[in-house]
């Protein structure tokens, strides 16, 4: 049962948490620099010098950018705020941990979208059709939400040491990049590698975007869409549930 008053309460709480995150964690020089440079380097390392057309690499660049911006800050917020004892300050108020996490995901989503925007604009320069750009924005948004939630999911580890979570997230994130179709197009992968790539959440947004920008894709569109949705929902629900499970262990630390 949701009356309008409790809805406005939820929205105000979520938005307040989101703005707090942006102020404290996102609007920071080093974060911005990392968010811009890291995916560019990674992408450049693989695509430049191979004589590929710029639009060939667009899909990979977008997915990498989303992956490294959206899931980079969310993992550290919960452990950091546990350590700082601000999480307990928040939770002494009438908010659920779920509301706080959705605020965190929202901030990360905004951050991810802002960093992807220049590439979307670049795609227009390269001659992408408007309808394709709009479709791309929808795909990008869903992907950003999913990867933001993935970052939050890592932080369910009930620790108050951000480095623990960073270690865990790097240990998972880098392999996910290498086993996906981001760095090497799926069409060029050997069959044994394909079955692994199918398990990476980066594979599907890349495939969807590649279809938009080059007309070329590996999986049927419906498979891409369903898999992208499944990953996004799985990460989001997983993050919220897992945090609820580990919250009391987290708050018990001193």
């Amino acid at each position, binding site marked *: 049962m949701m009356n309008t*008053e*409790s809805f*406005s*309460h939820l929205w*105000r*709480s979520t*938005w*307040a*948490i989101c703005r*707090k995150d942006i*102020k*404290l964690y996102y609007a920071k020089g080093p974060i911005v620099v990392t968010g811009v440079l890291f995916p560019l380097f990674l992408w450049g390392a693989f695509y430049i010098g191979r004589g590929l057309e710029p639009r060939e690499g667009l899909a990979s660049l977008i997915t990498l950018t989303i992956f490294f911006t959206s899931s980079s800050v969310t993992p550290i917020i919960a452990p950091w705020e546990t350590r*700082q*004892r*601000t999480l*307990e*300050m*928040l*939770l*002494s*108020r*009438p*908010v*659920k941990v779920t509301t706080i996490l959705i605020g965190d995901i929202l901030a990360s989503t905004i951050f991810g979208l802002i960093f992807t925007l220049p590439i979307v604009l670049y795609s227009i320069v390269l001659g992408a059709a408007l309808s394709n750009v709009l479709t791309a924005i929808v795909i990008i948004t869903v992907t950003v939400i999913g990867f933001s939630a993935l970052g939050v999911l890592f932080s369910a580890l009930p620790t108050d040491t951000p480095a623990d979570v960073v270690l865990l997230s790097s240990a998972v994130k880098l392999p996910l990049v290498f086993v996906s179709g981001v760095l090497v197009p799926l069409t060029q992968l050997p069959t044994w590698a394909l079955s692994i790539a199918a398990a990476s959440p980066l594979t599907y947004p890349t495939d969807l975007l590649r279809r938009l920008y080059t007309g070329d894709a590996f999986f049927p569109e419906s498979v891409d869409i369903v898999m992208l949705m499944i990953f996004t929902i799985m990460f989001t629900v997983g993050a919220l549930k897992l945090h609820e499970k580990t919250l*009391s262990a987290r*708050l*018990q630390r*001193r």
Partner: protein
Amino acid sequence: MSTIEAVDLHKRFGSIPAVNGVSFKVKEGEIFGFLGPNGAGKTTTIRILTGILKPDSGEARIMGYDVHKDPVKARMLTGVVPEEANPYPDLSAWDNLMLVGYLYGLSKHAAGERAARLLKLLDLYEVRGRKARSLSKGMRQKLLVAMALIGEPKVLFLDEPTSGLDVLSARKIRSLILDLKNNGVTILLTTHNVEEAGELCDRISIINGGQIVETGSPDDLMIKSGLYTYISVKFDRPVDPEDAAQFFKDWEHRVQGSRILLICKESAEPVVRVVEYAKARSLSIIDIHTSPPNLEDVFVKIIGG
């Protein structure tokens, strides 16, 4: 209905029974104090009552809402100054306060109005733009009090609200606590400062080793402690020692010239007898004073025993 109700709370950390069977009820508009040495279980009890920690067993209710089944409803009615939690060090005092206002569901306008009023009330308005990390301990604590009050709570939890503060900040907080009580707010505060507990609290529970050892008003506790009150009387002329000894035989006493010293567990009855004694013997009382045990003696006696 009690405003705050704790029913047989238990909480262990590993092998430490931090809270071991704590039950109590706080009535509306009461200031209830938790007095105990460090490590007694005060903070753990507050963290359970504010829904931060789940008890191993037992129940906690705020105005009828179960804190762990209905946390948001219970916390809507509650303000907390936690002992171990902090404002965001890198947000300004103002932003910290507004953030908490939004968490109570306030609109920007309502939160802003309340924030300004509270900051002025607590002499923080001038420093509202400063980051919390740059505030003095006293200012930070007052900010936490403001954050606890922005939701206009019916129930307020204060965990060691004045510990380690400068005299002025501590006094400001104490006087605010009394004002809030007069406005009908129910308050549970913990302290290891005996004097503060005596000054503020209608009732006190003395807690030690995770258990409540004694509960009562400050006066009750003095009587329950079994400590002695000293009554010293000076008359206008010397008294007859044997006559006096006979008259005051119910109490331990000393007679010395024109002075009588009585040692007793409470003061009302002996004082009446002193007056009767003086009247019957046409003595005038030049001076009479009683020294009840102070709360600190009581505390030491109860904790020690």
